């Protein structure tokens, strides 16, 4: 049996992304070239949304990309089902750019480690920052987010599910735990 409790609804999620976008926009200098790169799959949708908001707030055109990190994972043989390799879509140079890496949930930090490795294979960014919708704790690596939508304290066996319109038909975040 799975028990779910809702952490965020559609409205709260939009507010949260709006706030992240404002924070990022505040830190964009006049000479900064900024690119928003989301980690597939859900991070890529969030990156698109945040980029749209920043473009509106800062009146500045951003490059937007999507990163597939499957080939960089260190736990490939530990996950039950084999993940599908999707294409990375970064059709611009990341050299010297300020990169905002976007993911839905920050947990152990291992995904971000993979993403950093993958990104650096594309060039030499001027700076990389991290934006996440949810930070649920339990880090296994020294990684910290620069922009956080919401801190959600969780138990190690709980699962934070971010559902997005683009992938799941509706926007919400739920905390799932197995009922004993």
């Amino acid at each position, binding site marked *: 049996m799975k028990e779910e409790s809702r952490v965020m609804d559609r409205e709260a999620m939009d507010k949260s992304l709006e706030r992240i976008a404002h924070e990022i926009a505040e830190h964009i200098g006049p000479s900064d070239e900024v690119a928003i790169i989301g980690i597939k799959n859900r991070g890529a949708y969030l990156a698109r949304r945040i980029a749209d908001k920043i473009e509106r707030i800062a009146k500045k055109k951003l490059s937007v990309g999507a990163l597939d990190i499957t080939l960089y994972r260190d736990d490939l043989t530990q996950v039950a*089902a084999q993940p599908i390799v999707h*294409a990375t879509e970064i059709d611009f140079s990341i050299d010297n750019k300020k990169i905002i890496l976007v993911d839905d949930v920050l947990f152990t930090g291992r995904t971000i480690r993979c993403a950093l490795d993958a990104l650096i*294979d*594309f060039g030499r960014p001027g700076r990389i920052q991290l934006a996440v919708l949810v930070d649920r704790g339990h880090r296994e690596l020294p990684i910290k987010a620069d922009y956080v939508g919401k801190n959600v304290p969780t138990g190690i066996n709980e699962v934070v599910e971010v559902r997005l319109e683009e992938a799941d038909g509706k926007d919400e975040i739920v905390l799932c735990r197995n009922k004993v």
Partner: protein
Amino acid sequence: MNKKFAWTRKDLLGLEYLSAEEIEFILYTAGSFKEVTTRQIKKVPALRGKTVVNLFYEPSTRTRASFELAAKRLSADVLNIAAESSSVKKGETLIDTGKNIEALKVDLIVVRHNCSGAPNILARAVSSSVVNAGDGWHEHPTQALLDMFTLKEKLGRIEGLNVSIIGDIAHSRVARSNIWGLTKLGAKVTVCAPGMLIPEGIEKMGVKATTDLEEALEGADAINVLRMQFERDVAVAFPSKFEYLKNYGITTERLAKCKKEIVVMHPGPINRGIEMSSEVADGKNSVILEQVTNGIAVRMAVLYLVSMANDNRKTNTKASLGA
């Protein structure tokens, strides 16, 4: 594409054994790897720490090089063994060679052999993954996959396409793998060659056979022109090389009567002026060099998928033994 699909085979032995969904899945994965091959740093760490052995009992430059580059771009270590210079010469059997390679803790064996079915025997004997790089007249699955990948890239689909395979059908593993793959994905396949080079009963594979080139070219969305293998026994099938160009060679004049966007493929190496004129080989319909480029992406996908499936299989076996 089905998001729940997972590749579970430790080997790739031929397209005959695969479902349409499995073939589509390889092609999709190859698309992701193609992006990797366009990067400035064309290397990902997916097979870091794995070793790939290219075990070639037949001479090959392009297929071996393609597999070697594919493995290296996945960060695997590669060892090349050419049978002419190995203990095979001293009488070692295929299974013994396989077991010895496995004892070297090798994860993947890419094998080319002049006997049909040799990779199947090897795959049963070892727990490493086995990938068929061409066996006798049987199959050359990665060639057919890269042909289909290129076709899909050019025309957007496979289903419903008219594809003609022209050349020595009887002795061609490329033809056989293409027929299996294309028909599974819903293409209409015609094979065309001089009568002696069309095996009897080929229609049972779901293709149309003809000795008339014009018939094969008419309405074709793509043609796959096979190499005349003079080093094998094809010379008996027609009087001279020039006779072949005259009757079966793809020339500018013949191409002019085809669909304007017809895709011209050839697995290489080309005999210019025999199965195809130079103008056609270098012309705007030709995708021959793109096939070579795509070959690396397709082989990366295959090596990656079989290796991951084999790792999962071993993990699951361990887990069930523990429980």
